């Protein structure tokens, strides 16, 4: 691993104008979410969503078996993959046996997690990502920076330049309408003529054996109903028990994600169309291990709505790529350490623990508590990020001792009030280095004030 999150975030913030623009773009989505969730029953819906996920995790094996039985009975082939490698192998074998060389893929964070695209490319199979945002980052040789809005870090002028190179749009064309129209031509061409379609899934329903796929663009449907073979890559935690549960999920998902009441396309598919094939690859890749860990189990409830990213002050100001994991933001920060603690040990610290993620999460995952728990595990494993151990040891000694704490506070207030700003804002100070003003220090602490008022000893 090269630089960690703090270094990558600092690099992102170097372009302060872009960082502010990124922050605002996400805040806009967060506000749309707030309006869409203004329903009298919203909090009850979140309770119900959390319950259905807890129920699914408590009955996971049985539900997967029920799903498999029903899906198989209606002509779907179900595969099981223990890890990313096995998943990629299964997909590759299916494609190779059918001599597929061009694959149209719709959005799937799981295939990102498994690094399916490079795996297939190395074996001579071209995968075209057909979600517009994903296509933008794919053409640019990047990874998505957001689980729902893959190209949220791209400006329209940059998309214009990219499309000029690849699709021959006029060099100065930057209107989203014109650029999306050019992409439409290109992507429909790809989708209608691909040898195979790969999609993710937003849910599987044990009660119907159905796979549920939500998109706004319609790309998943164009691909899966045109290609001779449709492969669904899905994590085992995506299962729900009943259609009732699905109804609840569909009510919270798009509202939380983009502030829409539902996505434009919500497809429930239980059987291939006549003459075509449908395969579902159920992927574990560490999920069953997480299930066995009570502290982090509920991270599996995540429905990948992205709300916690949009609201997170750290994500908004550091950009998705700074997380260096397929899933960025608060949820990524609690998922990534389970995958590779050493590589991702800085992520649980990339949070102020403000709790905003927990407040918006439609399935009520207590992300801050898990961030804290990861910090504990990282400290016990002696794997604290560079510099943290010394600071924490110092700070710990001070806050644990009231006299030292009070005198440290006194000195800090005096320093802030009386030392020349140039001295305080030196290169050594990470606060001012990031372009921030130092706060005005009050003359006395809260405790001193309370003591003077005779409210405490």
């Amino acid at each position: 691993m090269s630089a960690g999150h703090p270094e990558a975030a600092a690099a992102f913030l170097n372009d302060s104008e872009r960082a502010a623009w990124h922050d605002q773009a996400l805040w806009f989505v967060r506000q749309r979410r707030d309006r869409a969730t203004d329903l009298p029953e919203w909090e009850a819906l979140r309770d119900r969503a959390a319950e259905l996920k807890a129920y699914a995790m408590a009955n996971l094996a049985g539900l997967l078996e029920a799903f498999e039985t029903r899906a198989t009975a209606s002509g779907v082939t179900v595969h099981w993959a223990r890890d990313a490698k096995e998943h990629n192998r299964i997909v590759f074998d299916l494609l190779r046996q059918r001599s597929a060389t061009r694959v149209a893929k719709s959005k799937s964070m799981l295939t990102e997690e498994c690094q399916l695209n490079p795996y297939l490319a190395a074996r001579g199979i071209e995968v075209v990502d057909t979600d517009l945002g994903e296509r933008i980052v794919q053409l640019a040789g990047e990874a998505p920076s957001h689980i729902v809005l893959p190209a949220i870090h791209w400006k329209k002028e940059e998309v214009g330049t990219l499309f000029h190179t690849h699709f021959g749009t006029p060099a100065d064309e930057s209107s989203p309408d014109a650029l999306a129209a050019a992409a439409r031509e290109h992507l429909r061409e790809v989708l209608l003529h691909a040898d195979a379609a790969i999609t993710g899934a937003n849910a599987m329903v044990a009660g119907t054996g159905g796979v549920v796929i939500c998109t706004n663009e319609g790309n998943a449907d164009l691909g899966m109903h045109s290609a001779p073979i449709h492969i669904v890559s899905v994590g085992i935690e995506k299962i729900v028990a009943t259609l009732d549960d699905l109804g609840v999920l569909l009510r919270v998902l798009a509202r939380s994600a983009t502030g829409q009441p539902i996505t434009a396309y919500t497809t429930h598919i239980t059987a291939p169309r006549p003459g075509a094939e449908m395969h579902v690859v159920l992927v574990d890749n560490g999920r069953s291990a997480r299930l066995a860990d009570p502290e982090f189990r509920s991270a599996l409830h995540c429905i990948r709505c992205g709300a916690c990213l949009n609201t997170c002050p750290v994500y908004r100001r550091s950009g998705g790529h700074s997380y260096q994991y397929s899933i960025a933001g608060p949820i990524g920060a609690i998922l990534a350490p389970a995958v590779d603690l050493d590589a991702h040990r800085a992520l649980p610290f990339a949070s102020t623990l403000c709790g905003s993620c927990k407040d918006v999460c439609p399935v009520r995952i207590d992300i801050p508590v898990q961030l804290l728990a990861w910090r504990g595990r990282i400290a016990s494993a002696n794997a604290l990020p560079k510099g943290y151990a010394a600071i924490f040891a110092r700070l710990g000694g001070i806050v644990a001792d009231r006299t030292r704490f009070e005198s440290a506070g006194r000195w800090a207030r005096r320093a802030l009030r009386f030392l020349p700003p140039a001295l305080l804002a030196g290169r050594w100070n990470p606060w001012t280095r990031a372009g921030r003003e130092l706060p005005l220090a009050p003359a006395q602490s809260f405790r001193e004030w309370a003591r003077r008022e005779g409210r405490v000893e």
Partner: protein
Amino acid sequence: MIARAEILAAIRAAEVPPAPTPAPVPDAADAADLLQQFRSTLESVGGASAVCEPMQVFEEVVYTLLGPGRHAVVVLPGRFAVAENGAVYVDADDLTNRADVVLATELVLVVPTGAIVATMHEAVRRLPAGSRCGWFLSGPSKTADIEQALVIGAQGAKTLLVVFRD
């Protein structure tokens, strides 16, 4: 098959404590005007709708909605509409080709008058038993992937109209 056995064994070995079966969600209390709610929600997601009265000609209703100069439309049957999100349920059993729902540029969904449910809770209960494939279609295809600017007609329908008819 080793993978399947291993995954299921690992899940069972995780010994997740039992969780209560979630209670069924009750139907929405009698909502006021579902048709009105559906029509305004559909408009907010980029679609449009009309009610074809018994004495009206269906094609005329459609062309009035479409506006001048646009003719090539695909008409598909919808089973029912959902007031809270402007969606119409379409089942593959009613189509000759599944891809039609996304191939059509100008899509008209015809829904029986009065077939409207309030929310997705009622909607999922109305899925036909044994359905092989079905869609909730809410307005035309759209994207906001370029600087969050909403573009209607991403890859599927550019226009989506709903006409209620007996």
